[in-house]
Each structure stands twice: as structure tokens, then as C-alpha cells.
């Protein structure tokens, strides 16, 4: 057999190991998408009913936030059982039926998986805390003192004072890199790694197409280090990859490692670790570039991004379910970002800004389009965040990151069409403000209007997917005569694409040295209009405010 065997529903797909490089991902909360059972919380049956919408939008892969049983003190990232579905979302069978229905529409599904820690309500922890004689005594990191691993930073600076918390039951301290109710698993114990891999297999056997691996840099600890990105953490991830590759075809591991690019590339290994990793630092710099109206912040980080193995891909996003993280910027840059994008202190959280895309950009349509254009033009796979395709807003008065996790706005009807439950029963109130509330911003209204953001984005997703060069091509920044203009070239085989974006809120002109493409004809990609052929002299382009052009550079001028 030359093609791998498949079971279950995955056979709708051809064997295509690099599928994740040319697709568009869409991140959503099962809780927030659609409620089919009228209990105020979204569920898998509801999600299944909305697959037609995601298919229409052009989504290739759905990324589900954690749906496992959880006390929900960290949005479900505090997992109490790795092998089950939280009852409010449905059953494991309903989950599998959803995955199968997605596959029938040629969409894949990946899910968040939290390897680093569990909820303190997980039976493993309950057993472990019973004392040193418990069979799972060493499944977590216990200590009699807090003076171990002191070089590890505290990540949730707003809520945690230490990485150690005393457990009165065991009479010892346990290690946690995140909340004190999320004890870290002890990977020194090989049984832990085996149990985690068994849990991954459980979901892969149900047809799941991969995982977004949460908080992977922190699996191992070591005295005298920051306890992040340690070699043994990479060793374990390579073992996970080898086990997945040996039994399953076309799956993807997406690492969440909020680190500088030179550290993140280690998570690709030699193409034998994670398939994908998020490029965190590029995102705040896109917002900075837009505010400062200059390309430099973006160009700097892109130019310092090391090359990655051929079978790997960056994941890129504008916004996600977390705060707009400012860990990977300098203190000065962070102050600038706070001043520009979080004028209300309630908008700040930890080292970041908890806001959605549209409110961050003051609802500016040109800005939203420009930011998507830049995102879609960069080397990597774009990840959309549910609701941003219609320009949903946020609610900074809700706690933690709930403000960006409110119900999806389907219609202008009661509860925004998300649920038929009583308003008071909803897991979070839908947005109702006059600018971003569901009566002003919803799928139904935007579907009807050809000029809406939603319809524009659907066309734009389709455009990107028509051109594999965006997913597969090389990237090269172009020098420009105008610092407000961000220009780069992507090329793959015969396909050469020139992307030029005006970051300024005023009209601009730019001259580009395109002499190496002399004789080629740029054809604008959204409308197919040919522009004057490239000559030996600098190529002049003019833009309206926040305008952009994507061109294919043709050897022979096509017909108009």
C-alpha cells in the first residue's frame, strides 16, 4: 500500500501531509458558538448545525478550545478529565459525529490539549495529594520548600505571587506555572508521559486531526534555568510526534510557545517535532506598525525570524481567545501599546490587552481590511478568531478574558440567535451595545449585504486559497522609498506575488526597485486588472489611506 490506511471518517481526505500549510484556520469556543439544547451554553450538536456557515466562509480547519470536563476556573484550560466531554457540550459520540460532519465538508478539526498541567480537581491530583505513598504520588511536582526553581518567572503576574502553592492535604507545596488551581504534571515520571500520549490517541482514534498544544515550553523544570524550552521538553515532544506519525496520517501538532522566534523554531525540531507553532511576536508589531504608520516594527521581527524546516509552518493571527499578549515586546514598546490601545485600565490583563480586533481598530473598516491583508500575505497559516469575521466587539466589564468570549452573534433576534434559553441562563451575556451589539453586528444581516465585512472576508479567504504561493512560498521584504509602506514578495515555483500595504491614514506614494522583474506585468489580484509593465526605473505606486495592492507578476501579459 502506497497510501496510509485510514479508518473512520478521515477517508474523505486525500493523503496530503502538508494540508495545514495552505489552509485557513478558525478558532472557536464550543460554549460560545450555538446552543442546540436551549440551556444557555453552546454544544457540539449546535456546532454541527453551523458547519454550513464555516464551510461557506472557506474554513479548512476548526480549532476547538478545551471542551473537557472542567471546573472552569481558567476557561476550560483547567482540565479535570482528558478522556471525556464536558456534559454541557454533549457526549463523546456527539463530538465524534461533529468531527465526521466537518470531514464530510472537507474541514478538519483540531483541539486544544493541555499537557503541562491539570485542574486540581483532576482525579490524578486528588490521588497524588494523598501523600508520598499514593500510587500517583510523583505525578505532580511536590516540594517541602518554595526555594526550588527560583529562576522561573511568574506568568500570571496579576493573580499569582509564586509558582508554588501549599496543599494542606499533603502538607507540601506543588508547582504551577499558571494558576494555583492548576498543578503542573511531573514529566520526570515516565508514567505521566505515557498517560498523556494515551489521551492523545483516544481523540485521534475518534478522527480528530490534531492538537493545539497549550503551554508546551514548561513541561520540565531544571534548577538554575528559567525552566522554559528545556532540551528534555523537546525530547518529549519529539516522542509525541513519532508516536502520532507512526499510527495516524495527516495529523498536525500546533505548539503554543509564547517565545521569541529564535526559541520557537526549536519546537519544529528538524521537522520531527511540531508541525506548526504560533508566531507570537509578529502580532503586537502589526498593531504597533498600524498605529505608528510605519513598517519598521513588522519588518524587524520578520527579518529576524529564522528559516523553518520545509514540512513546518507558522501559525499567524490578529486576535485570539487570550489577551493581545505583550510579553514578546520591549518595556518601551509595551508602554506605547498600552497608551495607544488600552486607554481604559480595565482593558489590560497580565502583560497584555484583552480586546477584540474590531474595537482595537475603533471599528475602522479600512483598518480591519488592511490588517487582514497583511496577515494573509505573510508566510504562515492565518488563524481567524470566531466573531472577528463580522467585527464583533468585547465587554471589558466581564472578568478575566471572558470579555472576548461572548456568544456568537447570529441574528438581531433574542440572545443574538445564539440560544433560545432565558437571558439569565446564558453562560455570558451577549453584547448589546449600540455599536458592536448583536442588533447592529450579526451574521444574518451581513450575509444579506454584499459589501459587508463578512462577505468581503469570505471573498478574501477564497482569493488566498486560490494561490498556494501564500502558504508555500518564500518571503522577502522589499526596500521601499517610503517608510509608511510595507512591501514584500512571495514566490513559489513560477508564481511571484508582490504585496504592498500603506500603513498610513493618509494617501501615500512609493517607489519600488523591481528591476529584477523587468518586463513582467503586475496584475492586481482582487479584480484582475493589469498594471503597467515593470521597467528598469523604480516602479511607482500610489495608495489611498490604509490601501493595499496584491499583484501577480506575469512573464507574459494576460488579456485584460
Amino acid at each position: 500500500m502506497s497510501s496510509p490506511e485510514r479508518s473512520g471518517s478521515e477517508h474523505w481526505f486525500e493523503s496530503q501531509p502538508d494540508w495545514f500549510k495552505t489552509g485557513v484556520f478558525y478558532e472557536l469556543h464550543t460554549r460560545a458558538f450555538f446552543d442546540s439544547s436551549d440551556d444557555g451554553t453552546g454544544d457540539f450538536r449546535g456546532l454541527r448545525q453551523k458547519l454550513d456557515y464555516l464551510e461557506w466562509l472557506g474554513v479548512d480547519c476548526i480549532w476547538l478550545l478545551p471542551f473537557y470536563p472542567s471546573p472552569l476556573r481558567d476557561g476550560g484550560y483547567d482540565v479535570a478529565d482528558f478522556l471525556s466531554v464536558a456534559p454541557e457540550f454533549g457526549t463523546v459520540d456527539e463530538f465524534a459525529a461533529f468531527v465526521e460532519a466537518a470531514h464530510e465538508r472537507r474541514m478538519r478539526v483540531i483541539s486544544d490539549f493541555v499537557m503541562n498541567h491539570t485542574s486540581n480537581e483532576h482525579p490524578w491530583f486528588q490521588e497524588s495529594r494523598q501523600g508520598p505513598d499514593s500510587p500517583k504520588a510523583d505525578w505532580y511536582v511536590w516540594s517541602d520548600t518554595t526555594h526550588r526553581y527560583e529562576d522561573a518567572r511568574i506568568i500570571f503576574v496579576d493573580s499569582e505571587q509564586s509558582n508554588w502553592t501549599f496543599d494542606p492535604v499533603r502538607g507540601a507545596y506543588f508547582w504551577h506555572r499558571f494558576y494555583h488551581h492548576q498543578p503542573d504534571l511531573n514529566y520526570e515520571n515516565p508514567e505521566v508521559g505515557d498517560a498523556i500520549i494515551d489521551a492523545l490517541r483516544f481523540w485521534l482514534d475518534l478522527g480528530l486531526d490534531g492538537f493545539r498544544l497549550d503551554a508546551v515550553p514548561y513541561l520540565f523544570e531544571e534548577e538554575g534555568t528559567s525552566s522554559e524550552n528545556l532540551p528534555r521538553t523537546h525530547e518529549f515532544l519529539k516522542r509525541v510526534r513519532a508516536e502520532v506519525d507512526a499510527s495516524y496520517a495527516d495529523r498536525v501538532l500546533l505548539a503554543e510557545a509564547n517565545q521569541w522566534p529564535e526559541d520557537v523554531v526549536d519546537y519544529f525540531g528538524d521537522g520531527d517535532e511540531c508541525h506548526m507553532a504560533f508566531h507570537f511576536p509578529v502580532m503586537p508589531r502589526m498593531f504597533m506598525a498600524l498605529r505608528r504608520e510605519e513598517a519598521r516594527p513588522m519588518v524587524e521581527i520578520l527579518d529576524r525570524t529564522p528559516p523553518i524546516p520545509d514540512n513546518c509552518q507558522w501559525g499567524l493571527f490578529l486576535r485570539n481567545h487570550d489577551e493581545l499578549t505583550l510579553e514578546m515586546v520591549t518595556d518601551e514598546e509595551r508602554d506605547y501599546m498600552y497608551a495607544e490601545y488600552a486607554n481604559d485600565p480595565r482593558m489590560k490583563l497580565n502583560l497584555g490587552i484583552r480586546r477584540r480586533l474590531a474595537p482595537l481598530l475603533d471599528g475602522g473598516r479600512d483598518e480591519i481590511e488592511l490588517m487582514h491583508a497583511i496577515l494573509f500575505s505573510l508566510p504562515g497559516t492565518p488563524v481567524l478568531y470566531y466573531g472577528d469575521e463580522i467585527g464583533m466587539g468585547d465587554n471589558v466589564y466581564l472578568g478575566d478574558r471572558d470579555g472576548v468570549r461572548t456568544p456568537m452573534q447570529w441574528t438581531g433576534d433574542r440572545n443574538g440567535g445564539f440560544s433560545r434559553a432565558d437571558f439569565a441562563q446564558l453562560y455570558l451575556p451577549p453584547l448589546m451595545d449600540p455599536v458592536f451589539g448583536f442588533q447592529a453586528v450579526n451574521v444574518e444581516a451581513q450575509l444579506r449585504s454584499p459589501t459587508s465585512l463578512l462577505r468581503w472576508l469570505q471573498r478574501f479567504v477564497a482569493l488566498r486559497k486560490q494561490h498556494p504561493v501564500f502558504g508555500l512560498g518564500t518571503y522577502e521584504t522589499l526596500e521601499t522609498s517610503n517608510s509608511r509602506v510595507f512591501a514584500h514578495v512571495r514566490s513559489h515555483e513560477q508564481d511571484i506575488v508582490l504585496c504592498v500595504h500603506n500603513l498610513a491614514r493618509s494617501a501615500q506614494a512609493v517607489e519600488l526597485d523591481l528591476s529584477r522583474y523587468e518586463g513582467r506585468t503586475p496584475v492586481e489580484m482582487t479584480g484582475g486588472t493589469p498594471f503597467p509593465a515593470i521597467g528598469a526605473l523604480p516602479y511607482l505606486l500610489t495608495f489611498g489611506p490604509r490601501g493595499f495592492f496584491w499583484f501577480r507578476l506575469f512573464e507574459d501579459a494576460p488579456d485584460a
Partner: protein
Amino acid sequence: MPSPPVPTNEELLALIQGARWFGAKGKALESAEIVDRPVEDPAVTLAIVEVRFSTGTHEHYLVDIAADGTVDALERPEVATRLAALAGIDSEGANVRSLGVEQSNTSVMLDELHMLKLYRRLEAGPNPEIEMLRALGGEGFTNAPRLEGVLETPGPPLETSLVSVTERVSAEGGGWELTVDAFSDDPSWLPERAWRLGEVTAGMHGALGAREDDAAFAPEEPSSESLALFAAAIDEEISATFGGLPEDDALGAVAHRAEDLRDLVHELAAVGPAGLAIRTHGDYHLGQVLWSTDADWVVIDFEGEPARSLPERRRKRSPLRDLAGMTRSFSYAADASLLLWGVEAPPGWVEACREAFVEGYLACADERLLPPSRAGFDRLLALFELEKLVYELRYEGRNRPDWASIPIVGMLRMLERAA
């Protein structure tokens, strides 16, 4: 048992590239290789060939090989009757007749009693035609060929059907040919039979919507935005199609009407509840119905549109899409008659057929499958017709500009009605 001589991979590659049932013409082929032989019999070998494209993707095709190594030998009695036997039908010594040109599969007639079909392009999962024939037979719908036998393979690599045997339908001819031929001497031929065609179509949909306990067929409530998504997709289609139309006088009458058509889409999409979605025929037109010697309609070819993927063909949809396919085919028949033979259909012919067909359908329809009001029904049917018109315009504009007048006239008529 001595293995029959088998073609080399190079021979397979050439053979498949040249075969008329090879669906991916124009795509660069890299290699072909036999990955499984689900039937290895002294008379015939069935081989599953994996064809790889230079893009890295692949497709599977079924190839029959006779004892002497000849490929594509279904017309030989010993090959056809042996396959029929494996599918459970005894036709020893039968006379075998080839059924001529076929696009995607290969069929032969055995003694004018049984039709044996070899499926060429194989995809994992239930074969939609066999699934549909089983469901229709199971619900007692008799206006479709009776499925007599199937040869399946349990996989791997593919769990699917290879060969089917159906009862031969004794017919005067196909709906398309009989309609077009009748224009010169008896143009009322179809109008007189269109009511019955509507009834039969309603019976087909009723049977397809009756299997509540069968997940592949159970009727489903469409999601609340499904119609809006459909309308948005047509709207984009109109915009893309009209943007790419060649400069042509024939297109002039409609070229500037894109905005009017897009407005019409909006108007028509205000249907309210659209009714339940069910499995449908999927490629329904006059060429897919026969007029039997018992003077009744028989619906054939349940494979769905060959260009669509298997899951798409098995998707549940509004049955009104089938109706739109048929009503558009009435217009094509009338216009083709004029374009090809200069024989004009009598005035009002298309409208008469359409009305009789729709009324016949409504007289027997399962109301759960339809919008609750007649106005909603009319709008939804028109919306599906408009979708077909846009597709027709794009297809004809590119491939047969002389025929573009057919969808153009249809569009103008629809705009007139709406005004």
C-alpha cells in the same frame, strides 16, 4: 491458479490517461500502480489502480482484466457473466451488448434482462447510486430500476461497491430524445406527460424522505442561515460570472443586468422556513428519465453530479433543487430544438410543461419537505432556477457562446416576471 498476465505500470498509466471514464483529464499524471485486486478469478481480475498526480494527490480507478491480459474487456461474455455471477445474478451463456458511450462508468446489457455496471472512479464510502436504489426499493418506489445484485469489496484500501446489476427497464426512450423528437409532429407529447412526471418526482422525494431511522436519509432541519448562505453564494456567482463574460453581442441583452439579478436573489431568498432537507437525485433533468413501454416515467442514474465529491453528492438538500433542474431542462429542450433543427416549440410550451409538472408534484408532495406557503414555494423554486441559470450562462459563455441565448432568455423572463 495461474495469475493472468497483468499490464505494467507504464501500460496502466497510458490506458487510464486515454480512457473516457478517466475523470481528471488535464491534470498531470505521475504514476499508476495496482494497489489491490478485490477479484482474482480465472475469467476476470478486478484491479484497483492508484493514480498519482504530480501535485501529490491521488485517485483510485477500477480496471477489469480478462484471462489473457486484455484490459477493458467487459463486452466479452465470459467477463460480464462472471462478474454478474459474483454479484449474485446467474446469466450463464447470456448475450452481451455494449451500451456505447458513457462518461464515467462502463455498462453492458445481459440478454436484454439485466444491466451490469462497472464503477470506474472509486471513492471510500457508500456508492450513492446503490444507496439510493436500495432506499427507493425499500420504500416501495417502483419508478426506478430494481437493484438485483451488487459486488462489493470490504477494503482496505477502499470499502466500496465495484459492480451493480439492475433490472433492465423496457423503455420507449429517454425523456430528452422523445421530447425533442416530438416537436416536429406532436409537440404536446411532453405537456401531456409532465403532470405525471411531477407525481413521480414527488413519489421519489417522498420515498427518500421517509427513512427516519436511517442516518444517511433521515430528513434534516436546515440551519437557520442555510438559505442566506445559498443566496450569498449565488450573489457572488453572479458577480464573478458577469465580471468574466466575453465581449459578445449575444450577451448584450443581459450584460448590464447583473445588479437587477442580485436584487432578485435577495427578494427570492425571503422564503421563510424552506422545509426539510433530504437526499435528492442531485442531477435531475429530462436525460435522467425514461418513458417506459408501460407508459410511465422511470427515473435513472442516481450517482449525482460526477464532478462533485462523494460527501457533496450525499449531502441532504431541498428537493426543490431537483425540480429546478427539471424545469430548466424543459427550456433547454425547446431552445435546443430551435438551435439544432430550426423547429420551434409552440408558444407557451415551456410554461405549460412547467405548470403541469409543478402542479403534479404539489398534488402528491410530502409537505414537510416544502415551504409552508405557495408563495414561499414559488420563490424558492425560482431561486434554484436562478442558480442554474447563472451556472448555464457561465458554462455556455465559455464553451458554446451560440447557446448562451438559452440562459439569457431565461434570465430576462425571470426579471420580467419579477418586475
